[in-house]
């Protein structure tokens, strides 16, 4: 399928989904749906570096929070233009601020992508394990910085008050939901484009064998930096609308460990080598989490997530997509008939 066609179909599905939600007209549905969509973006973002290149990022929460706090920062500036800027700049700045949400998303993505670039320069020359550990470090360093940064609320947190209504969309949550749908379309398109391009081949060589990749002419460091920047930017973009969604941001919620866990668990459960894998994982897992949180408790929901992650990496290392591919292959073989010798697998059924 050609890419423009793919984008068209995806957009049509997104529009249909929005229309369906809108006609039901239940706010809770939009709130829950927003979370699922947000996780699709996070899981896809993680997978660009983790699934395609084989570099584990434990610092997803950090990159997400960069997006969150760039919005908080710009919002706060917008609230106090007179105090922040010198006199002669106040008037022009009042024209610019408050920035519209789409602009905030772009800024969040840019800042987060830049941090990814810097981080990559520091650590991507090392073995993958060191990168993974460094990403853990990054999240904590960032959280400490934010906790100590009074302008964005420090450890107390900050209120970001969204307008109640917005033209065309109606309730503000509808608008947020629509924006997140667009981000989903963007991230899935990016992932699929990578997969089908030269870049995807290069990423796969890095995952398989970095030494051999270099020897065959793949500029591994540059490709890893591209992956880190793309991945970081998508994380940041997913984080930027979050303050408007939640209304009150504090470091504990922006840097919540469940972002790090989910953005690893979802691609692992869905499947890391196919663009739809992270989406499948995100939809299943976050829907399950919402149901369990409502019906049982949020602690139990985290437990299930952790156990599923462990279970999948041990039992089904290629995720749901892998299970499905295996099943299809077996079915094709059975359709070909006459494969009695294949009993070595143990379960001929």
């Amino acid at each position, binding site marked *: 399928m050609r890419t423009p066609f793919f984008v068209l179909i995806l957009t049509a599905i997104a529009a249909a989904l929005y229309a369906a939600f809108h006609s039901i007209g239940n706010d809770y549905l939009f709130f829950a749906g927003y979370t699922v969509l947000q996780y699709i973006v996070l899981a896809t973002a993680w997978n660009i570096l983790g699934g395609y290149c084989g570099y*584990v990022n434990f610092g997803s929460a950090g990159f997400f929070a960069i997006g969150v706090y760039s919005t908080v920062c710009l919002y706060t500036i917008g609230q106090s233009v007179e105090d922040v800027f010198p006199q002669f700049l106040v008037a022009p700045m009042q024209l610019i601020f408050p920035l519209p949400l789409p602009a905030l998303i772009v800024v969040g993505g840019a800042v987060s992508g830049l941090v990814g670039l810097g981080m990559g320069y520091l650590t991507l020359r*090392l073995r993958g394990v060191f990168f993974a550990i460094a990403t853990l470090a990054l999240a904590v360093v960032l959280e400490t910085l934010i906790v100590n940064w009074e302008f964005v609320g420090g450890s107390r947190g900050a209120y970001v008050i969204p307008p109640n209504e917005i033209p065309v969309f109606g309730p503000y949550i509808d608008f947020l939901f629509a924006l997140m749908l667009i981000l989903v379309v963007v991230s899935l398109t990016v992932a699929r484009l990578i997969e089908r391009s030269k870049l995807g081949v290069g990423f796969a060589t890095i995952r398989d064998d970095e030494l051999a990749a270099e020897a065959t002419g793949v500029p591994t460091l540059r490709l890893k930096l591209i992956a880190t920047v793309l991945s970081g930017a998508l994380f940041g973009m997913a984080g930027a609308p979050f303050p408007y969604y939640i209304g009150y941001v504090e470091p504990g919620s922006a840097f919540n460990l469940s972002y790090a866990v989910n953005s690893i668990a979802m691609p692992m459960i869905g499947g890391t080598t196919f663009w739809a894998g992270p989406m499948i994982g995100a939809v299943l897992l976050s829907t399950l989490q919402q149901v369990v949180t409502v019906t049982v408790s949020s602690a139990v929901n985290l437990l299930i997530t952790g156990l599923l992650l462990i279970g999948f990496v041990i039992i089904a290392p290629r995720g749901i997509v892998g299970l499905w591919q295996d099943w299809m292959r077996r079915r094709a073989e059975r359709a070909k008939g006459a494969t009695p010798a294949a009993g070595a697998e143990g379960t001929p059924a």
Partner: protein
Amino acid sequence: MEVSFDLLINAIIAGLMLGGFYAAVTAGVSISFGMLDIVNIAHPGFIILGSYIAYIVNTSLGLDPIVVSILALPAFYALGSIVYEVYYRSFEKHGQDSLRGLAFFFGLLFVTEVILNLVFGVDYRSVDAPYIGGSLSIGAMEFPYRMLVPCIVALAMFAGLQIYLSRTFIGRAVMAVSQDPQALQLMAVDPIRIKRIAFSISLATASLAGAFLVIIQPVIPSAGRDYIGRVFAICVLGGLGSLPGTLIAALLLGVIESITATFYGPSWAPAVAFGLLLLTLAVRPSGLLGR
């Protein structure tokens, strides 16, 4: 001026005692990551598990937390054997796939935390022991016993590990296993068995480290996360696989953190370890790669 000098001296002393404790926390990872090349990021989770075991037995039976942790050593050793067996069968045997191995340990860390959360809730838990509260004063220098006792036991444990690894046959085999598994096979030693033993020992240290932690400060289930960065910073800074290096790095980090907390406020302390780790990774990559 004099006041701040006393402050500095006491910050350094507190830092050294903290460093001794950090050494105990890191010992396990120094073995698993440094010597066996198993990136057990779940180790801090097991340390917190150790803290809670010390807490339960201490509050119900009144046993000393350190005694409890010594009694629990076999259980932690067994847990280590199980974890290694799963890790080996699922990941190590097939080689290459470090991605999933990392995810596995990350999952373990997370699950341990969540289970503790479900059982004990998010409140701070602490233990009772006769040495908690008092302190030894020498001139202007203060040695709170709750820091001093864990530090001394930690150093003893550390010395014991070092002697075990350098003097016994199995200990030497552990040191050799990462460098030359083939040589071990020639000596008719099964490298897998050696790795399992070493990993089990590394996990057993979590029992003691957990008791030290809960003596030093009250714990919550998520406390483990604060130690991931410290542990790996120390491990990397000290040079992978070297226990003496680990000890020096631990003391160094303890002092730097303590001084930072004293003069800039405790809210900056967590960033110290991670900043140090990032700095080490960025500045000395060749030293880290040269294995």
